[in-house]
């Protein structure tokens, strides 16, 4: 592997990079809103695709154009699950795909599968905005880290259990280099030293499906789970508790903060559809009216510039709401599943 820099010991680069912070997943960082954001989607348009089939649809990465259209770029590839950008250069980005980490350093002109056969099917990838050489990869059998921009990858799993380390979601705390939360099969794990060691901060009996950090308060985190409902932490992910009023009967898949309104949160699950809260999680309202009867809820997101709410339905494309779920219109990606919505600050390029 390449030379490992103990980057977590380096003074936080936040001051230099805060304006350029990359927001991966729903909920963009408000500080960059002034300059606006580019929106990226990882989407699969799957007409019963099976491995090896002729691709008759266009899948992979999409970006929103100035006209508000969704333009495909990069490989036509049905299973790109997540994307994360280097804040120093937005032409450098990493994707979590069924092949492993597939990355580009020229904005998608050329690509490299940077992992080998021993790392497969990552579901999430996250660049450390304060130490952007460091990239974290959520694997079905643990967690891998690259300290050289994807040049080499190593497993860093000290503190994770031998079994139960299936990792679905991985997010770097934007306030401090090397501080990372991982949503795993057996719970939520925290590292504060760049994955040199992990500790369990919340147990789970099934998979933690997504983690999100509030764009307003960096100590506030939300997590969706399969069995434990929706969890909240107000101390940077050290302690968690279940949010009342949200069932534990079925899996929750996705959660988002509205970067334009501190108290607006949104959560979704396959069987529930979409629920919003406008009082910071104290009460929740089902917002399925105007959506197809078949919910199949997969991902939610809020545009950091407009506060527009986006909601993906499995293989039905995604819908948008300009009144936070009170009414909906079809937005795009006909027949598609959006695995991730990502926003990056335009001013940070």
């Amino acid at each position: 592997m390449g030379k490992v820099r103990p980057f977590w010991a380096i003074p936080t680069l936040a001051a230099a990079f805060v304006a350029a912070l990359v927001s991966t997943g729903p909920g963009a960082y408000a500080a960059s809103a002034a300059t606006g954001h580019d929106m990226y989607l990882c989407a699969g348009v799957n007409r019963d695709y099976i491995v090896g089939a002729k691709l008759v649809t266009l899948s992979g990465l999409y970006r929103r154009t100035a006209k508000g259209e969704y333009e495909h770029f990069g490989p036509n590839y049905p299973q790109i699950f997540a994307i994360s950008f280097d804040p120093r250069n937005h032409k450098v980005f990493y994707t979590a795909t069924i092949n492993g980490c597939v990355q580009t350093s020229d904005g998608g002109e050329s690509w490299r599968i940077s992992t080998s056969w021993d790392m497969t099917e990552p579901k999430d990838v996250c660049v450390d905005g304060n130490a952007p050489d460091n990239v974290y990869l959520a694997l079905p059998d643990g967690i891998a880290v690259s300290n050289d921009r994807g040049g080499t990858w190593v497993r860093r799993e000290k503190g994770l259990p031998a079994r139960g380390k299936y990792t679905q979601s991985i997010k770097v705390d934007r306030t401090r280099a090397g501080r990372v939360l991982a949503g795993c099969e057996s719970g939520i794990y925290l590292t504060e030293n760049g994955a040199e060691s992990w500790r369990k901060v919340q147990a789970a009996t099934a998979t933690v499906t997504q983690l999100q950090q509030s764009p307003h308060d960096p100590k506030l985190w939300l997590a969706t789970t399969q069995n434990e409902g929706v969890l909240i932490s107000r101390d940077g992910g050290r302690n968690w508790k279940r949010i009342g009023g949200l069932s534990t009967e079925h899996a929750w898949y996705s959660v988002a903060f509205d970067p334009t309104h501190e108290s607006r949160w949104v959560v979704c699950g396959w069987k529930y559809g979409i629920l919003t809260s406008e009082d910071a999680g104290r009460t929740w309202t089902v917002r399925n009216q105007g959506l197809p009867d078949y919910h199949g809820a997969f991902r939610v997101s809020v545009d950091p510039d407009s506060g527009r709410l986006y909601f993906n339905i499995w293989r039905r494309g995604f819908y948008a709401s300009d009144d936070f779920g009170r009414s909906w219109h079809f937005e795009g990606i006909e027949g598609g599943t959006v695995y991730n919505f990502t926003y990056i600050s335009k001013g940070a390029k």
Partner: protein
Amino acid sequence: MKTMESRKLMMTARRASPATFLSAAALGLAGIVFPSVAGAQPSYTGPVPSRAVIERADYRREAYVKRIDEVLNWRSGRVDRNNPATLDMAAICVKLVQGEDLDLCSARVIELMKDPGTGPFWMFPAVAVAYLGKDKLSPEARASLRAAWSKVLQMRGDTENHWAMYYTSLYLMSELYPNEAGTTWYSGKSSEENLTESKGYLIHWMDLATTLGQGEFNPTHYIGEYMIPMLFLATWAKDPKMRIRGHMMIDWLMADHAASTLNGVLRGANARTDDTSVTERWNALASFFSWMMFGNTPPPANYGGWGIYFAAVAKNYTLPEVIYRIAMDRDHDYTQRDLKRSRRRWRYSDVDYAPVYKTNYMRHDYAVGSYEGGITDPIQAHVWDVTWDVPDPRGVNNTMFSLHPISSAQDMQMYFAEVPDWMQLGVTREGKPSYDSADKMLGSSRFERVLQDKDTVIALYDIPPGTRFEHINGYFSKDLKNLTEDPSGWIFAQGGNTYLAYRPLAPYTWGTTWSWAKDKDKGDRRLISPHLKNGTIVQAASANEFKNFADFQAAIRALPLSFNLEPTPTVTFKSLRGNLLRFTYGESPSINGKRVDYSKWKLFEGPYLNAEKGSRRLVITHGELERILDFNTLSIVDRVLPEKAGDAGSSR
């Protein structure tokens, strides 16, 4: 009444649709285009092959080559020069082998490479064309083929067969085009990096298969997805170590296949099969390999599709005589016990790979096979059956078994890196239509435990309330005769020259329709037992052992049997073979008071195949013939053993 010929023509037409029997990977993935009407396949529509052993090696080779040529000529004959669609990648392979229509092949390759496929099912045909056309395709065609490996990000897939195809293909292409920069490969890695990664995985997979056991063991279709890449490796790898590894894996797979087939029909437990092959046991790509290698059963329609790629290179392989004789010798009863392993478990399990303990009892008239239950593959596993021999297996559903038809998101999450809710819905749209159906006959369950001793099977079920689904299904073929529900509780039937006794341990009803199938009423019957604590006992015997069917029934009625379903299903049964079987769900079973200790199970143990767990070394024996495959030394050693007194076939 339809004549045999018209029936076979109908079968031909029916099976011409790839969806009826080909793997989910589907032929279209590799650009295989079938003519609108299949047929005129000499061995598929012709008489059943003779089961007589061909003693002389030169005659065996001649017969093998004749079969290969049959495939090549058939496929070549389907090409219409005026219809480019008929010249697919498989046909191009054949034409290249035959040295025909080379100009057309070059033009067609250029056309096809404008829009390359993605994933292993595209990659290995492309590799075959690249190697077979190395000196025959035009420079422009070869360049277009090479360029295709640059422009489309190939998907690796998520199963072992995908990876075997993917990495063999990438390995061979990287060897064919060495010293080329990462910018010229879809992977972004140089030829050498690709080679290193591919070799690393292939050796890792071979290590797993030869120490812990094969993951996708005895697959009815996916056998092709291992055999074809391994043949390519054995034929084209420059590195002699990889070449011999490919060769040894083919021997390994074929030895296992030979010992597991009843006159060419793969039966018994399968890591993966499908809705058709699980009942019409012959109708599978596995039968193509039996036909090709042993010549003892007809090939499936279109030679299984993928078989064409194997045939294109098959002259580079010769089946060892010892394996041939294992496949052909069904005069002696034998039990073979093997260790296999589950698919990789990502979560909800204490182990990466669960061991699978497989029992295979073979007789002249029938075979009984099983593994101990539980989930080895979440969708397409088949745990146990009794399969009887028939003179012509085409169109015959010659098998009997029961199962718990579970559908479970959690089970699938164990093996797939996916969220729970879409999986049950998704798989039914992706080539596994029965998965979420109560009347399916395919799949394994975590709530099933199986004990097999020779030709007796006891399957016990303890299904928690709320499980999807809360019943068990028993399969009763349209081809059974003399089906009799006896007041004793036994159900008697005859299949071929085999007598069958099926004892449901809980009340049942009958169903005759299959919601997931295109043909809703296939003439088969489904025993439906809607009880959570449940069980099945099946005892098979050869008709030759009894004066008549009534005699068999009387013998079965007389067998001591006691069972309780509450609180936990438990059975004590003295089998037709005089062995006392005690089996309680969730506990180690015993046979004649001796506990079955699976921890002592070897990788292979039986009269024909023997290997220690972790050894990477398989000893294949038949009579005086022995072949040792040793992956530690990458050696194949053939010996002629001293003849034992009275040893006719070495199997007992």
